[in-house]
């Protein structure tokens, strides 16, 4: 899941300041799960903007709409019949959602209401933790499904560093040592032999350095 947090209202207000008719568009996927851009949060932001305008005697029109997904054309297309009625779209999608909507409606100013933060998992109600860097070269199979690149503060492929104390990371004692987890899990699985492999440095060219990455599947194409 892609996680995000809402920008400060002052930053949002600055971006929409030149406009009078504002469409606030939420996304019902990842950002709904992390309680930053779903239908509820879209309603809250719309309400806050209306009240803010009213208390400062500014006349604006704010409407809300939530798409199931902001990163897929079939869902974005639901804006086609309404988008002309607005001066600006304030998107509560992730960075991909904002850009996807802008790609479909290039003449409309689409502005982000969220800061996209990381790929993570819901650990418990109200807690989301980063677990994947989208490096493009997944090695979880060697590490008992604990990513050392993301979850080890030092990003060690050939750990542990030896600095952990009572299962906690020496960099941040609130975080469990990823390498402690890896070794414990491999021990439970009876696969400590996997630790004998020495891993070369990560090939970051699969993540960055060549511009935006793409996946093209001929069998999925029309």
């Amino acid at each position, binding site marked *: 899941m892609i996680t995000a947090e809402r920008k400060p*209202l002052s930053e949002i207000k600055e971006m929409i300041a030149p406009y009078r008719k504002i469409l606030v568009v939420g996304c019902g996927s990842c950002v709904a799960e992390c309680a930053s851009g779903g239908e509820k949060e879209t309603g809250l932001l719309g309400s*806050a903007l*209306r*009240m803010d305008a009213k208390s400062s005697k500014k006349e604006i029109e704010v409407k809300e709409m939530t798409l199931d997904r902001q990163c897929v054309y079939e869902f974005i297309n639901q804006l086609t019949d309404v988008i002309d009625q607005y001066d600006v779209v304030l998107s509560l999608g992730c960075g991909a959602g904002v850009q996807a909507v802008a790609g479909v409606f290039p003449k409309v100013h689409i502005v982000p209401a969220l800061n996209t933060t990381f790929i993570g998992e819901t650990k418990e109600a109200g807690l989301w933790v980063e677990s994947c860097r989208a490096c493009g070269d997944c090695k979880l199979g060697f590490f008992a499904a604990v990513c050392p690149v993301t979850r080890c503060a030092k990003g060690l492929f050939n750990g542990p560093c030896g600095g952990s104390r009572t299962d906690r990371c020496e960099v941040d004692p609130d975080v469990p040592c990823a390498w402690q987890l890896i070794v414990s899990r491999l021990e439970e699985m009876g696969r400590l032999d996997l630790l004998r492999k020495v891993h070369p440095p990560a090939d970051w060219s699969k993540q960055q350095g060549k511009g935006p990455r793409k996946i093209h599947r001929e069998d999925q194409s029309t």
Partner: protein
Amino acid sequence: MDQKSAGLNITIFFCQQIDPDQDTNRRALEKELGKRIRFFPLPCSGRIDPLHLMGALESGADKVYLVTCPEGACRYQEGNLRARKRIAYTQGLIEEIGLERERLELIITPAGNPVTVDELARGLLAREALIGPSPIRG
């Protein structure tokens, strides 16, 4: 000057477990004050959502109360604890738009001293008006 005399619009969200006869008990006050007082019974105060609180303020409430059962007495275990967190979260939201956080207030009913919802509301109306009409009211 008390909140009733100050003409404030009051909205009260409340856990209906605190007063089994709330439906009857609040009628007289609703008739007396009309739109100036609005009651919203909740099956549990933990059902409150920031959207409800924002909606009340946007609809013209000057002061919004959320009334919970006593701590440790929630029929659904932790509803009143969640209510406290949601009030705090929404107070942060309204501060961003320049409203006083005091416009939202959590009231925890005392343990061992049951009150009817109308008694409770009259008590709140009799409180000194520390804030004026909301700028949202226009």
